[in-house]
């Protein structure tokens, strides 16, 4: 995984850390404290889904955001973002 992608993904995880923590506390921590894992074996399967789906949502949303951004940038300029950011020799 390239440095830019890695930085982007960690940035998105940092950005969503508080909603993610709030969600996990209410859906996982509180039922665990109340003994849901001991009394209900289905809870373990449910907990796995609850644990994984938000993480998958974050990664998929990031990937879609990057694709949309890249597409819009290319449509706006007709060139790649790299070409756009390169200074013009004439203006020097």
């Amino acid at each position, binding site marked *: 995984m390239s440095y830019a992608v890695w*930085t982007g993904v960690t940035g*998105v995880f*940092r950005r969503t850390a508080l*909603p993610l923590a*709030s969600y996990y506390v*209410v859906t996982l921590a509180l039922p665990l404290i109340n003994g849901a894992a001991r009394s209900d074996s289905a809870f373990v399967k449910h907990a796995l*889904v609850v644990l994984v*789906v938000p993480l998958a*949502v974050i990664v998929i949303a990031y990937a879609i955001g990057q694709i949309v951004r890249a597409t819009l940038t290319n449509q706006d300029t007709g060139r790649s973002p790299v070409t756009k950011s390169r200074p013009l020799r004439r203006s020097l």
Partner: protein
Amino acid sequence: MCEPAARAAAVGESVKTKLLVVAAAAVIAWGLKRHYADARPEDLWWILSPTARVVSVMTGATFTLEPGEGYLSRDRLFLIEKACAGVNFIIAAFGMLVVLLLQRVGSAVSGLRLLGVSLLASYAAAVVVNSVRIGVAMRLADHPIAPSMFTASDVHRIEGIVVYFGGLVLLHEIVRRLDGRGYTAGRRP
């Protein structure tokens, strides 16, 4: 009192106020959870009734209160029951907003304001997000798209997680922007 001592006293007072706000938020969240655990569907009218109304507007279905059951749409054969109330979403959103805005608390008045605003915002968000979740669930019930590896129940569960978590992230972003603090983590200066 010399200046450093006065500043230290002010900081100590602010920390004490913040701790009191966190304790009050925990009591409110616990009270909500207890109320939800003991409540009949009729007792949850304050969240189920507005949710049923918004879902009606979104989907065109008509919901009526069935005592002991919840809000039933006879034409769509769909029941908004106690488990659909979204009380857990209110608790998650309320806790998230209190933590997010806690650094704004400097006095008892601002602490009370934070608790009130967070509670109202989480309630409003819960009605909207829960209505979206139920609306999508009704759509999925009418037009099942369950891939072979998932049951309809799995799809319903995943849909609930995606909408609830997405709602929390959206609420978080909206409040951050309204609070005037653009998030810069992960970006290079």
